[in-house]
């Protein structure tokens, strides 16, 4: 088991490298002068030079990357070009928001999706057809549109939940939950349909296997056959899916945070992008990459628990 953990952590390194290196390559390809972008065309030469130095553009790309790496490993991701604050500090403030949002959405998608998918797989016919429709709709409806509609219904007209804004956990538990409810549901909407469909397919496939018949032939009660045996065998593709969904949810979080004006990493990414605040955007990219690594690790561990073949190799 420890071998699995170590192997997964080792694989994490190329990922973080890849993400950060892609960023750097893109930066190196920047057309025009970022200093001009930032300061406008009428600043003095000294000002441009200062920005260049600040951005590290006075060195070669490799040196720049090396510097960045050096700092990153020590926990320093540079400073924001806009407000000169440490990137790490800024991100740390916003991390809990995005974490709560994405993890919440993943859990909702996972639990809801598995429940619906299992229901659909065991009750064929109408349930199957409605699951298909449900899945297709969830796929087709744009997240941002759904968010706006929900806000309109529940916040603006219904006055049940806040339309925008974020209440930190420390301040009020109930307020925190209320401010998270709509965003999590919106974000989870796309994911839940995918999980439902995958669960249904995986359960159907598991239930069609020979060992299911063998279990029934030996007199094992039906509930055990479905919820213990079939589900465990269906778990592997579902877990894989959850891992990839998480990656997608990170992207979706960017949109959702915009719709609901949540002060998370996503909305920061958008504003930083519009302001060309590269260190911040790069920092967020690294955080996201680390998040993906962590989730993949959890998924791998769960694999090992569910699938003995994986565990032993």
């Amino acid at each position, binding site marked *: 088991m420890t071998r699995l953990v170590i192997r997964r952590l080792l694989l994490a390194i190329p990922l973080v490298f890849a993400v950060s290196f892609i960023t750097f390559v893109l930066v190196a390809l920047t057309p025009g002068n970022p200093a001009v972008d930032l300061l406008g065309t009428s600043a003095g030469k000294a000002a441009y030079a200062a920005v260049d130095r600040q951005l590290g553009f006075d060195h070669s790309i490799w040196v720049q990357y090396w510097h960045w790496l050096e700092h990153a490993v020590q926990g320093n991701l540079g400073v924001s070009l806009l407000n000169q604050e440490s990137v790490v500090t800024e991100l740390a403030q916003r991390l809990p928001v995005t974490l709560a949002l994405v993890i919440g959405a993943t859990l909702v998608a996972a639990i809801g999706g598995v429940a619906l998918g299992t229901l659909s797989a065991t009750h064929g016919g109408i349930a199957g057809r409605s699951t298909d429709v449900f899945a297709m709709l969830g796929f087709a409806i744009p997240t941002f549109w759904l968010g706006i509609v929900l806000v309109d219904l529940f916040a603006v007209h219904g006055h049940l939940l806040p339309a925008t804004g974020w209440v930190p956990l420390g301040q009020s538990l109930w307020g925190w939950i209320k401010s998270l409810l709509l965003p999590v549901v919106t974000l989870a909407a796309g994911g839940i349909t995918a999980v439902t469909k995958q669960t249904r397919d995986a359960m159907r496939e598991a239930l069609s296997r020979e060992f299911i018949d063998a279990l029934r*032939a030996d007199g094992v009660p039906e509930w055990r056959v479905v919820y213990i045996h079939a589900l465990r065998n269906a778990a592997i593709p579902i877990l894989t899916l959850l891992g990839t969904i998480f990656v997608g949810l990170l992207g979706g979080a960017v949109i959702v945070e915009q719709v609901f004006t949540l002060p998370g990493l996503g909305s920061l990414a958008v504003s930083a992008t519009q302001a060309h605040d590269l260190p911040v955007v790069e920092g967020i990219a690294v955080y996201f990459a680390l998040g993906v690594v962590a989730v993949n690790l959890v998924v791998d561990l769960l694999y090992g628990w569910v699938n003995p073949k994986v565990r032993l190799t």
Partner: protein
Amino acid sequence: MSTVVSPDVIERATPPSAPPVTPRFLRRLIRRPSAAISLGVLALIVLAAIFAPLVAPDSPNYADLAHPLAGPTLAHPLGTDQLGRDLLSRLIYGARPAIVETLEVVGTTLVLGLPIGLMSGFIGGWFDRMVMQVIDIGMAIPAMVVILIVLSVFSNDFDIAMIALGILLVPPFVRNIRGAVVAVRGELFVDAARVAGLSPPRIVFRHVLPRVSGPVLVQATLLSAISVLFTSGLGYLGFGVQPPNPSWGTMVGNAQQVINESSWPLVAAGGIVGITVLCLGLLGDAIRDVSVESWTGPVARSRRHSVALAAPLDRELAPREPNADALLSVRGLRVAFPRQGRSVLVAQDVDFDIYPGEAVGLIGESGCGKTSVARAVIRLLRGGGEVVGGRIVVGGRDVLALDANELRRFRGGEVGYISQEPQISLDPTFKVGALLREAIKCHSDMSRAAARARAVELLELVRLPEAKHVLALYPHELSGGMAQRVALARALAGRPRLLIADEPTTALDVTLQSEILGLLRSLQQETGMALLLVSHDCWVISELCQRVLVMYAGQVVEQAPVDALFDRPAHPYSERLLLSDPGSVTDDAQPLPTIPGTVPAPEDWPSGCHFRERCDHASAACAAAPIPLAELPGGRESRCIFAHDLYDGHSTPSGCSTR
């Protein structure tokens, strides 16, 4: 999924190997309503976008400030936005960037991904391994963030962002295509092509590429859908086409601003995106369904099938009463399966008895219905099969009348069952010990320790050495022979009085087969249980069974003690079957005796005797009416009107050919 760019969507989309996209395929596709409508709507959108100046009622940026946020009217079919601009026109013009962007994304992915996927799947080796590693990393990169980075760097060039998105979608695409290629490559006809001397490029183009064109199409539709969602999301965030020019995403953003005054713009803008993506998704599903159908025939619709029989309706033979002395008594059993909306009989008028402690064999070739009969006894028919007639009585109880709870106890407790492939009949995620304990606990109330002891006992019963060690193993760690013994142990956990073994040794090597047969015999002796052994191999049955039933085309055609059957078969089919085995040949120089013709499918069973079209002795009487089982001396039965003649060795009447 909306803007959640989940690579899984692309991955799960298609079955691994699909037939090529041919004109025939396309015709099948159009016939499906979902595909036809989707294609129609998409074509409409594309055409409208291309001919926008002609089709749109207004210029998209013309602001009719006098009528802001108007509802649908003749002048403005979809109403106006807050600046009085016609929504329909804006939607139509907004389709243009959507289409262009989608083409950029999907084009990039296909151009890069298809060659890589083809090569990776076909060549394999280190190239494939490297590609898979890159894919793993690629799928973990959060696409949205990278696109934002690209946008922050190349703020004036949205096209580069689109190409970047296309590149980011390559990993899941390649993974799927590669999977399809690997599946095709593994098929024997590719080997045959190599043996035939065809060069690899030719094989790839002629044989592999057509087979993956289906998956490629499905993926293309999904990529398009994801692209539309993603780019409209970016538009919503303010990237891409800049105001005042319309894009679907920015229109949603504008609509959000006036949500309190009018929700119509929101519906219109969101609606177009939703409809486009919906059509693409439905199209992809339809392509996938048609691909699968081309393999397996139309996907069975689960409507209630009419019980109209496909074969000509024989007058039913009068059913006989079940035998009260027998452990298992089957009378007039009929089993049917739904095929293409109709109910088709696969077993008809099956009668037999099994007495306590007896070993009875059921011989037949594929398609004769023997497996359906065996599974019907424990009501474990697959694929919608049902018992549509007859009675099954075990120990005085009517099996067909048992409720769910009684049935559960009956299975494994009265009648046990093992099937052909041992390794797949055990849940791979459970240890052997857990599987055994579960079976034990289903049939008795035991503590965990007692159950464990009983599990060891069972393993010893099936002659597995080192029982304690085996308990801790997983099914994939067992050899074929061991797995079959474990399956046997589980079937015996409830102490059944009858064991049904359906081709238990077919998947095993002959030396292993011999051991399992010996084991079944000693189990019978030790536990006194009866055995119903189903097999296509006459010699397996001849070794183990005292009585034999021969099935052909859904019917029992002969029933006899084993020596009697092998020495002197009393039905033309049994006779020809035994003769066609190379093991019974005495003169090698002669060709093997064969049976002319082929086994009729259940839909095509002849009236009267099912074997008559292939039989030397057939006469008009054979077609007239259903043939009953005739009794012969020695406790034998035969479903042949000439049975007595055959049995006594006389030549047949009516001048038909003799042996």
